[in-house]
């Protein structure tokens, strides 16, 4: 697999499949933090030790396959341009930290982009595995299998009492962060989500808006993940997360029905206006684009807008990020130039649907 392959498409191949509860849960992710037992963690280790780890991954795993995850591409971060790094971050294949600060950093990505391994991030190894829709258990099963496959050749830092030993005390134990990405437009419009977030936090789970800074969620997309990694098994952590996500799905569906019944015309107006903006605007900022995309996606889910694929939200959310726009333009763009290109890309993409 070549780097170009990951750069060209905004949407990862695995995202094209529709997952369970795919109208609300966009994706499920399992992340496992692992370390080599004999090497200090990246914050303290000597550069040559970290380079040793990086080279080990290149030798052992470049072009290898594991089950459905074929043809892993080994990519040293230092080989990437600033824009290419940004694109991988926007596709959630690597973290901003790996792109910017890590030494001897690299990534290993499967052809279908379902599995990515970050090398020498905060921990030596960070495994990420994605599934479309709401499939945490399946993702965990696959992540464990992949983890076992890596462990065949690697001595993990593990302790019978503390579990997997990680650089940060917040990851020790399972080293697992399970998360789901949810589209919650009705709960956002009715502001119900603001009351729910503190309650969810009390249960040891974290809610964050992804895309956009701080607590503000661009495009009504939220990420829910576990906070605790020690003292509970991975399965129990996922059960807890799952039950909260189930409830959120229920509330979101109820809120959507309620909105349709109580203020159907208003909602319809909002959705079609957004559709109009996306279809006709010549300049559009990322914030406005995100909010319109979210509304259009809701319109698709509610059956108001037909003949537009659901994937359009995931795809255009990534495609219209600054890094991707510049990758597309093949040059650095000013903010204004980006807004123009964003509008034109969205128009083109919607034309494709017709």
């Amino acid at each position, binding site marked *: 697999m070549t780097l170009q392959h990951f750069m060209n498409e905004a949407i990862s191949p695995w995202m094209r499949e529709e997952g369970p509860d795919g109208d609300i849960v966009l994706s499920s992710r399992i992340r496992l933090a692992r*370390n080599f*037992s004999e*090497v*200090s*963690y990246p*914050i*303290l*280790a000597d550069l040559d030790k970290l380079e040793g780890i990086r080279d080990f991954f290149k030798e052992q795993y470049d072009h290898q396959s594991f089950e459905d995850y074929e043809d892993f591409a080994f990519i040293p971060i230092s080989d990437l341009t600033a824009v290419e790094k940004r694109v991988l971050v926007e596709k959630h294949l690597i973290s901003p930290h790996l792109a910017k600060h890590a030494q001897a950093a690299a990534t290993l990505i499967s052809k279908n982009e379902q599995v990515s391994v970050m090398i020498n991030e*905060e921990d030596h190894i960070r495994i990420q595995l994605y599934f479309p829709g709401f499939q945490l258990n399946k993702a965990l099963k696959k992540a*464990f299998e992949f*983890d*076992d496959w890596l*462990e*065949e050749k690697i*001595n*993990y*830092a*593990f*302790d*019978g*009492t*503390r*579990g*997997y*030993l*990680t*650089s*940060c*005390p*917040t990851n*020790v*134990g*399972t080293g*697992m962060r399970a998360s789901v990405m949810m589209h919650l437009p009705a709960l956002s419009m009715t502001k119900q989500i603001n009351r729910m977030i503190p309650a969810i936090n009390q249960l*040891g789970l974290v809610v964050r808006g992804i895309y956009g800074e701080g607590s503000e969620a661009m495009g009504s997309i939220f990420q829910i993940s576990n906070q*605790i*990694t*020690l*003292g*509970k*098994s*991975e399965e*129990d*952590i996922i059960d807890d997360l799952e039950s909260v996500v189930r409830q959120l799905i229920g509330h979101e569906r109820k809120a959507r029905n309620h909105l349709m019944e109580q203020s159907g015309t208003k909602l319809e107006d909002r959705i079609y206006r957004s559709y109009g903006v996306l279809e006709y605007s010549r300049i559009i900022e990322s914030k406005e684009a995100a909010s319109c995309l979210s509304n259009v996606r809701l319109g698709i889910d509610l059956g108001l807008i037909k003949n537009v694929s659901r994937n359009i939200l995931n795809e255009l959310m990534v495609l219209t990020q600054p890094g991707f726009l510049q990758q597309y333009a093949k040059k650095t763009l000013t903010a204004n130039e980006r807004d123009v290109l964003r509008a034109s890309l969205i128009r083109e993409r919607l034309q494709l649907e017709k």
Partner: protein
Amino acid sequence: MKCQECQQRPATLHFTRVINGNKTEVHVCEVCAKEKGYMTYPEDGYSLHNLLSGLFSFDSTKVGSHQDHTFQQVHELQCPKCEMTFSEFKRIGKFGCAACYETFAQRLDPIFRRVHSGNTKHFGKIPKRKGGDLHKKKQLEDYKTELQDLIESEAFEEAAQVRDKIRALENHQGDSEAGDN
């Protein structure tokens, strides 16, 4: 960083105080710490650690030169492998290597409890290859808990089955050990 009391000398002592869940950080120099009574502030683990510190080889070199500075010994708890000190660990909030868990073991429980809702022990996955005996141990523990539950609920037939499983596992353990030898 300057001492927050006198604003003159560099702060050499760093405390984190948790009172009713409110965390405050104190950065003071040694002189002010003594004056303001920070040095006598009772904190979990200190007394025990002071008792034991003389026994640890990595501390013994320092005990000699800092006999009168009891607090210094505590802050110079240092990982023999990556040289991370405990105060450095507390400052940046990251371990330097896997051995740090061993080095700071005595002082980690309160930290883990705070971060992980009161938990200090791992209950999840065990590495397939490296885990080896841990898998059997965990399986045995699971069976024993199950057995206890079954006996308490007077489900003796099922209990007998679980007991047989435990026996089989224990025998198997013996076999494999014999085989290895």
